[in-house]
C-alpha cells in the first residue's frame, strides 16, 4: 500500500463490496440484467450472508488501501438465514461509529440492505456511494512514519 507522500492522485478508485449471496448479490445481478448503468469502481466479494462479515474484514480492506467498503445484505427480517443480518447490523454500526475515533473517514464505509429484486435501488446505492468516494478521493492510507504528532493530555 502506498503511503500518503507517494499516493498517486490519478490512480483508479477501488471499492470493495461484500454482498450476501441471497439478496444483494442477486440485486446487483438484477441491476445488470436491467442494464442499469453504474460506476465501475466496485469490486464485489460474494459472501453467504452479512452475518459472515467480521468487522475486521472492513478494517483490513481500509488499511490495505480500499477507497471504500460497501456491505450489503438482505433487509432486516428477510435474512435467508433468519437472523444473520441482525448480528451484522450491530457489529457494523459499532464499527462505523468507531472508525473516526481512530482517524479513519467513516464515510468510506457504508452498509445497506438491498433485496434481489431491487435492481434500481442497487444502482442508486452504487452510484451514490461511488460519488461519495470520488468526492473523498483516493484513500491516503496510513503514514508509515510519523514526524510530529499532536499531544493529548487527559489528566
Amino acid at each position: 500500500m502506498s503511503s500518503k507522500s507517494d499516493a498517486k492522485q490519478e490512480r483508479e478508485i477501488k471499492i470493495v463490496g461484500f454482498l450476501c449471496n441471497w439478496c444483494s448479490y442477486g440485486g446487483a445481478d438484477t441491476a445488470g440484467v436491467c442494464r442499469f448503468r453504474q460506476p465501475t469502481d466496485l469490486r464485489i466479494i460474494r459472501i453467504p450472508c452479512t452475518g459472515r462479515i467480521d468487522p475486521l474484514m472492513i478494517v483490513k480492506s481500509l488499511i490495505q488501501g480500499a477507497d471504500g467498503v460497501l456491505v450489503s445484505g438482505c433487509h432486516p427480517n428477510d435474512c435467508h438465514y433468519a437472523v444473520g443480518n441482525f448480528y451484522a447490523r450491530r457489529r457494523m454500526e459499532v464499527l462505523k461509529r468507531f472508525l473516526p475515533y481512530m482517524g479513519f473517514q467513516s464515510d468510506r464505509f457504508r452498509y445497506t440492505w438491498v433485496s434481489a429484486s431491487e435492481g434500481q435501488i442497487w444502482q442508486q446505492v452504487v452510484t451514490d456511494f461511488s460519488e461519495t468516494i470520488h468526492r473523498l478521493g483516493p484513500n491516503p492510507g496510513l503514514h508509515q512514519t510519523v514526524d510530529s504528532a499532536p499531544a493529548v493530555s487527559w489528566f
Partner: protein
Amino acid sequence: MRIGVFICQCGTNIAGTVDTRAVAKKAMEFPDVVFAVDYMYTCSEPGQKEIQDAISSHRLQGVVVAACSPRMHEPTFRRAVKKAGINPYMFEQANIREHCSWIGTDREANTRKAIDMVRMSVEKLRRNQALFSTQVAVNKRVLVIGGGVAGIQAALDCSDGGLEVVMVEREPSIGGKMAKLDKTFPTIDCSSCILGPKMVDVAQKENIRLYAYSEVEAISGYIGNFKVDIRKKATYVDWNACTGCGECTQKCPSKKAFDHFNEGLGATTAINIPFPQAIPKKARIDSDYCRYLTGGKCRVCEKICPVKAIRFDMKDEIVTEEVGAIIVASGYDLFDARVYGEYGGGRYPDVISAMQYERILSASGPYGGHIRRPSDGREPKEIVFISCVGSRDISVDRPYCSGICCMYIAKQAIMTRDHIPDSNCYVSYMDIRAPGKGYDEFIRRAQEEYGVKYIRGRVGRIYPRGDRLVVQGADTLLGVQVEIEADLVVLATGVECSAGARPLAEKLRISYDQHGFYMESHPKLRPVETNTAGVFLAGVCQGPKDIPASVGQGSAAASKVQALFSRDTIETDPQVAHVNENMCIGCGKCEQVCPFGAIRMKTLRDGSRKSEVLETVCQGCGLCNATCPNKAIQLRHSTDDQILAEINTLFD
C-alpha cells in the same frame, strides 16, 4: 496448483464492452495460471467441451470461468468440471457480465474491472479445497404440526403415500377453524360434511399417530433426523379408556364453562367433548371450571364414568418422537375486534365477530341453527356486516388483506337472507376482493339474487339506541353519510398469526415476517419450503388464504416430503462450517449465535471443551466464522483466508 481461466464473450454481451482477449492475456500472468483463453459461449456444449479438453491437455487442477452470474451457471460449470475429473468445488466463477459488462460502457474501465475480478477469483481458487458431500440416512416419518384442514390434507396425503405420520394438535380435537364453519364459499356446501370424513380418516389410518391437546415442546436434530418433544397436556381423562359416551357431560354440575368451540356464545360443562364430530371423541376436564380441581369437592364424573377413565392426578407428559421431516400447518388466530373501540365489540352483546355468527348459523351451534341475537334471543331483521376489521389498516399494524373476509361476508349474508327472507343485509366494505374460481360471480349473486346491500365506505361509530344499534358511516360512492339502525352487527375480523406462531418458529428455527407469518424459501418458486431444510409449510401459518389454497398447500407440502423420502439418504451441502480443534478454545460463542443449532460443545478426554459442527444441520451462513474470536471455525469455501486473499489481491 495448475489453474485454467476461461473468459466468456457471451456473444457480444460481454465482449461488447470488455476486451476479453486482453483479460485472458493478463490472466496468464496471475500466479498458478497455466492456461487462459476467451471463448464465444463458454456455457454452450462446445464451450464446456473446451474446458474439459483443457483440463486433460493442461492437467488443470482448478478452473476459473469469467462469465455471467454464478447464480445463473455455477451449477452448470461445476457439473462440467466434475465430468472432466476435477472436484466441483475446485471451480470459481467471476461475474463479468451482470456486475461488469452490462452496467458500464467504458470499455477500458470495464476491462480493468474484469481483470481484477478474474484475479480475485484466481486468488480465491488457489485456496479452495476439494469438498465432498456426505450421505445421511433419512428417517421416513413426518411430523405434522396442526390439525386444521391444511394439516389434515398433508397428513392424509403422506399417509396415502405409505409414510408414518405424527400429528400434533393444540386443541382437544382436530378440525381447526374449518370445523367451526357452517358452510363454505362459493358453493355453500356444508363444512363439516366435507371435513368430517377427512377427520375420521385421520383417526382411522393406522399409520397416523394423533396427539390431540398436545404441543411441540422442543425440536432438535436436522433434516432426515429430527427429534421432537411433545407435551401431552393433562386432560384428567384416560383417553385409552374413554369411549366418548358423554355420560359425564350430562351429569357434570359445573355448567358455566367457557365454550371455545362456540366462541363463547354458549356455555358448556367442565368435563366436555368439544363438539359432536370431535376427533378424537374423548372427554376432557377444563381445570379452570372443574369443581373438584378448583374447590376440592365433587368427583361426580368419576362416579358416573362407566369405564372409570377419570384421572384427577394426571400431569402433563412429555413424549419424544423421531421424524425425518416436519410440515408446519399451525394455522391462525382472528383479530381481536375490541381493538376498535368505536365498534363496541365486546361491549355490546349484539356486535359479534363473523366466527361467532358462523356458530349462530350452524345447526350444531348454540342456537341450533336459528338466527338469534345473543342479547335477547330475538330474530334480527336488520343486519350490518362490516368488512376489514383488522385488515388493510396500518393504524392497527395490519396492513395486509386477509383475503377471505369479502367472501365469507357474502356467504353469511346469503345464508341470512335464506334463513330470514324478510331481513335486510348491509355490507360496509372498502373494496371487494374476490379473485378465485366462481368467487366474483358469488359476490354478484349476493348483490343481485339475494339483494344484499353493499355500501362502500368505512363505518365510523356504532352506538346503542334502545335495544338496537346505530351504525354510522359514509357511502363514498354516493358521497353521503349513512345511518342504519341494526339489530345485529357482524364484524369481519381479519386473519392474524397464531398467538403461538413466533415461539414455535424459534423452536423450528424458521423465519417469520413482521406480522408473524412464516417465511417461505421463495415467494414464488418455493412456496412451501422454508430455509430450514426438512421443514415445510402449509396453510395460513404462511399467510392468509382460503380453504382451497390451504388444502393445495397441504398437498404440496406432502409431495415435497414424499420427494424427500423417495431416497434413502440425502446428500449434504459440503459448504459448511468446520472446526479446527487445535485452535478452538471452547468459548462456545459459535454455539451461542448459530441460528440453526448446528453447533454443539463436546468435552475431549483431556477435559478441554471444543465446539463441533453438525454438518447436516449447518446451513453455511458463516455467522459462527465471523463470531469466532480466533477463527478456529471456518466456513468451507468461504474461509477467512479466501476472503482476505480477495481483498489483498486488489491492493498489491
